[in-house]
């Protein structure tokens, strides 16, 4: 047999059940990605005799004597394929993990298919962009602006990784070849709650190729939390690498290491586990009741709020007198708002490789948002010297908070330490659903009152958060749910009771918005009801009640004394949304005949940095060639921070961003970085980069004055100049080296003080009263992002956040049956938005500048997600007269509720 790939012949033979995707990767064509391995996402698309196919579904033997073209084969004679160039020009990607498959698919479309992208792209999932930038690419739009020395900030510059992303050569976590690599597979619990009496590994060890089996008997007994926070005490220590009690279906039971995935899988199947079944509880309210099974009977050292009641944490907070406030109100709204279990669905599943190199350094290459905090806790867990452990990531294929956890690194390190061999773990898409994390499902009972004159008199919430089997992020998400969503409103009487509760479900964790989308859904729905109740326009009602610059933000979040509110961005966002909703645009869609229409808005406020410190170090150094080395810790997973850091440093150094040689997210580079979470990539790590670059700017000019004499030195794109003199940076660099001087500077930012950013979302929708289908006719989003460093990328963050939130608002829900088993852990059954599901959004920026962030920038990664469900629910209320208090607003549920009401 002979296999021809991109014009090259390969003599290797696939094994009988192998699919083309893994065969191609085995042959070294690493541009072929795995998103789902089930034919749903399109990341593995290749051309087979010129026809696009999902290579994960093609039996590899069928490629025999046929021509396979992968993303690597599209470019010819060193020139990009026109579609690759188009994706580069439009910057039609964020994390880029879907891009290879997207470009291969797009390159194959005929004219008719290009006219019908909703259908033509239904087999390609992008979780980052919301598809607008992809549509732009296919339509030939150029979104990239030119750079100019010292003026990079404010321009839509392209991502440095772009050329590698569009050619399939950008390296993601598993896109490396490592000799002697062993594969790790995990046997997962079929039970929601059980004690493991014994595990018989005899048959597993007898499988040819199996090298080792690890069970709870082999793992450190030390408890930790998979959540990564700068302050370890933020999360309860309730988790073991391998435990003798399993608390959810999907929890690790044992790990098998073998020389192939097939052997490791077979080893897992042959393990004999003796379980003692324990009673399980899935509902958070039930789990708090006396008599409920206790999940974690642990002592105070675990820092669990109240283990006997399954409470990870609780909040009891009161400001003023809500009863008095309700008595003063002319209108009171009460409702219970429920949000569901949703998954991040990054296209790259969690994965990691660990190996010890010749120098004795333990390397961990991981798909993570938090390499530095992961190293810290690996060292704690396994008693390792931090100087001998390196954790790093290159480009990460999407995160959304789901990779602010240690879910793979601990087990690969355990196996690497014990076997002495390199170990790889790659989660399947099913494992991603059943065994990583989800958003915290919450039930929020809200009660709110207002006077007829438009004054808010009382706001009360009772929040029950289902944190699942482990408490990672449970407390912090609850606190955040109790924060900005009510802090944004001036109201004399507020009260919150909140509970984060253990249940025997897959653990919830960090997810874009971090509690705000859940409580915001309740609060913003209630505000809408109050406005309706007193007959006031909902934006007008909000304008009267939101806090103004200088006013205190009063909420259960007591950690906001370092938050500065200095701009009037929220007012501008209201103006922008109001004006846009009135204006007709060519992207507006008409309502089908006979459908009901309505409009809705909602807002969100977010602290630009998480509380309690978020630390970033950066370093900038002049290179011999006159360009700069820029080193920082924050990770790139499609958020665009790499581009932004280059722009910030270039601006401070009076040069262009392409002169920055960037190294990032690698503990080996030194320094510290809390991590790429909490929307901090620009406002914290970027601030550190700004400080470092400014310090280097001064150091270079100081050296110029000292070495070359004279005064009035200025830094230019590639030189320093003073009146009448100009010295190239290459020359200055050589002079510095000769003088034994290193021209480099560091910068550090500790994440305080902080600021606030705002978003306002507006929708016009149509609802089919006979079927419950919802169609979005117009989607408008206004953001106060301070001074926008990269408008194209920031717009992309907003569109992507809104898109992801629309998925959660309209479609997505990880369903669990009454035994704790996931019903729909595949992308076929868990529908994330495809091209056809999303509107083309209008995005507007307020014209503000932040006093705290780098060059006036604010954070803008999470917050666009937050107001979407409420704005859509408010539009649904407007259209139908019925208040929908449970997401997702699936057509079947909409119709059945309309029928019931």
């Amino acid at each position: 047999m002979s296999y021809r790939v991109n014009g090259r012949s390969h003599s290797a033979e696939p094994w009988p059940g192998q699919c083309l995707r893994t065969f191609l990767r085995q042959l070294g064509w690493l541009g072929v990605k795995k998103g789902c391995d089930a034919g749903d996402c399109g990341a593995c698309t290749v051309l087979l005799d010129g026809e696009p196919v999902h290579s994960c579904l093609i039996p590899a033997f069928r490629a025999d004597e046929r021509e396979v073209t992968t993303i690597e084969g599209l470019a010819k004679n060193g020139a990009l394929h026109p579609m690759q160039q188009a994706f580069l020009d439009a910057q039609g990607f964020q994390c880029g993990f879907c891009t290879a498959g997207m470009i291969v698919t797009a390159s194959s479309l005929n004219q008719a298919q290009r006219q019908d992208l909703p259908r033509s792209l239904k087999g390609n999932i992008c979780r980052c962009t919301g598809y607008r930038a992809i549509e732009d690419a296919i339509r030939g739009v150029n979104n990239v602006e030119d750079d100019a020395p010292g003026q990079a900030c404010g321009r839509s510059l392209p991502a440095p990784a772009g050329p590698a992303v569009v050619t399939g050569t950008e390296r993601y976590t598993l896109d490396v070849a490592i000799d002697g690599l062993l594969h790790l597979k995990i046997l997962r619990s079929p039970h929601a709650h059980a004690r493991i009496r014994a595990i018989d590994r005899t048959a597993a060890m007898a499988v040819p190729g199996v090298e080792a089996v690890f069970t709870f008997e082999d793992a450190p007994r030390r408890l930790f939390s998979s959540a990564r926070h700068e302050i370890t005490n933020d999360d309860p220590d309730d988790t073991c690498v391998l435990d003798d009690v399993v608390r959810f279906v999907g929890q690790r039971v044992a790990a098998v290491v073998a020389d192939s995935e097939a052997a490791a899988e077979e080893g897992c199947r042959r393990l004999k586990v003796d379980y003692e079944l324990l009673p399980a509880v899935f509902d958070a309210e039930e789990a708090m009741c006396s008599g409920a099974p206790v999940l974690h009977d642990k002592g105070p050292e675990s820092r669990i709020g109240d283990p006997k009641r399954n409470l990870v944490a609780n909040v009891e907070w009161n400001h003023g007198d809500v009863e008095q406030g309700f008595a003063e109100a002319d209108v009171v709204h009460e409702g219970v708002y429920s949000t569901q279990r949703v998954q991040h669905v990054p296209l790259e599943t969690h994965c990691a490789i660990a190996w010890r190199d010749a120098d004795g350094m333990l390397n961990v290459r991981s798909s993570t948002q938090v390499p530095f905090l992961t190293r810290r806790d690996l060292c704690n867990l396994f008693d390792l010297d931090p100087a001998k452990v390196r954790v790093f990531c290159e480009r990460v294929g999407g995160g959304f908070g789901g990779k602010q956890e240690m879910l793979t690194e601990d087990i690969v390190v355990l196996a690497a330490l014990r076997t002495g061999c390199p170990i790889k773990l790659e989660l399947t898409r099913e494992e991603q659903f059943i065994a990583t994390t989800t958003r915290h499902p919450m039930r929020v009972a809200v009660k709110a009152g207002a006077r007829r004159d438009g004054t808010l008199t009382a706001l009360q919430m009772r929040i029950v958060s289902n944190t699942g089997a482990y408490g990672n992020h449970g407390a912090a998400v609850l606190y955040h749910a109790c924060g900005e969503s009510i802090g944004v409103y001036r109201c004399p009487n507020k009260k919150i009771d909140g509970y984060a509760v253990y249940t025997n479900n897959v653990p919830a964790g960090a997810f874009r918005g971090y509690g705000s989308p859940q409580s915001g859904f309740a609060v913003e729905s209630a505000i809408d009801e109050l406005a309706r109740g007193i007959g006031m326009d909902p934006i007008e009602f909000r304008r009267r009640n939101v806090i103004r610059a200088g006013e205190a933000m009063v909420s259960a979040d007591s950690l906001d004394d370092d938050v500065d509110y200095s701009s009037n961005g929220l007012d501008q966002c209201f103006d922008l949304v109001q004006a846009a909703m009135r204006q007709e645009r060519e992207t507006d869609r008409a309502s089908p005949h006979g459908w009901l229409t309505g409009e809705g808005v909602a807002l969100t406020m977010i602290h630009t940095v998480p509380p309690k410190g978020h630390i970033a170090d950066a370093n900038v150094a002049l290179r011999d060639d006159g360009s700069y080395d820029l080193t920082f810790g924050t990770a790139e997973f499609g958020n665009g921070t790499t581009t932004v850091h280059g722009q910030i440093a270039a601006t401070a150094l009076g040069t262009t961003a392409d002169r920055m040689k960037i190294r990032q997210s690698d503990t080996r580079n030194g320094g510290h970085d809390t991590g790429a979470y909490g929307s901090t990539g620009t406002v914290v790590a970027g601030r550190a980069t700004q400080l470092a670059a400014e310090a280097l700017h001064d150091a270079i000019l100081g050296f110029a004055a000292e070495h070359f004499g004279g005064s009035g030195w200025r830094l230019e794109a590639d030189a320093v100049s003073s009146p009448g003199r100009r010295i190239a940076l290459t020359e200055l660099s050589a002079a510095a080296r000769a003088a034994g001087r290193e021209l480099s500077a560091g910068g550090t930012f500790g994440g305080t003080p902080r600021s606030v950013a705002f978003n306002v979302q507006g929708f016009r929708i149509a609802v089919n009263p006979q079927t419950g289908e919802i169609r979005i006719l117009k989607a408008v989003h206004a953001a106060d992002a301070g001074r926008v460093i990269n408008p194209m990328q920031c717009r992309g963050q907003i569109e992507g956040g809104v898109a992801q939130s629309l998925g959660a608002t309209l479609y997505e829900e990880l369903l669990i049956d009454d035994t704790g088993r996931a019903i729909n852990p595949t992308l076929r059954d868990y529908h994330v938005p495809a091209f056809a599901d999303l509107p083309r959004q209008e995005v507007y920026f307020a014209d503000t500048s932040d006093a705290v962030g780098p060059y006036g920038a604010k954070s803008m990664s999470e917050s666009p997600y937050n107001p979407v469900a409420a704005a859509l629910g408010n539009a649904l209320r407007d259209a139908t007269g019925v208040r929908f208090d449970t997401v997702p607003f699936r057509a079947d549920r909409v119709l059945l509720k309309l029928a019931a009401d």
Partner: protein
Amino acid sequence: MDLNTITDVVRPRGRDALPRWQDGDAWLAGGTWLFSEPQPHLNRLIDLASLRWPAIEADERGLRIAATCTIATLEAATVPVEWIAAPLIGQCCRAFVASFKIWNTATVGGNLCMSLPAGPMISLASALDGVCTVWSSDGGERQIPVADFVLGAKKNALAPGEILHHIDLPAQAFMRRSAFRQISLTPFGRSAALLIGSLSPRDGAFALTITAATSRPIKLVFASLPDGRTLQDRIASEIPDELYYDDVHGAPEWRKRVTPVLAEEIRQELSGGAAP
């Protein structure tokens, strides 16, 4: 995905070369379902593509579609102009939740044999009075109407070792006016109800085929186009509640409510605007 328990692939060149069916075997047609889920109970694949059945043949008797015919080949088929119901082919192909790329691999027979309620080839073939020809393991063959082939969700009339060989769609079925309606929870999602109506220009007979909403195809036949009330009553009386399918792609109660809505749209479309 890799099917790591598979140790052997048999690629027979003719019926004679088909191996004796045994536990752990699976027929491999397109493989788009087989390779989309773990199959740890399987150890051998028997590749039907190796048999090289003629994919599709249209003549005056009708359309003969090999079980191994890909969706893309079916979609691109040329048929006589007087087959006025032929647009149903494209409509049903587009009703796949899978993209056009999967059409290059997935097969018509595979879709029938999966026997999922939302299988659009089941909708197409049952609406067009399709008949399956099945190869039995003793070397014989038998015919069975598509409507009787699919027995329920993931259940069909094939015995272990039997192979669906081809489907015949009679020409007469194509010579009827047709109307197509489909709904799902998302714009191009998996069908939660897929209804096809057809009206004979010859004798005025009307047939309504209901799929996806129900766990197996339901065909309602009328001597002439009924009025709205009659149609609704017939649907209500012939489809018991338990037949409405329950999965993540739509609540059964919703499928029950939207089915008559789509049926009425079909009735109105076929009445040519002058609904009785």
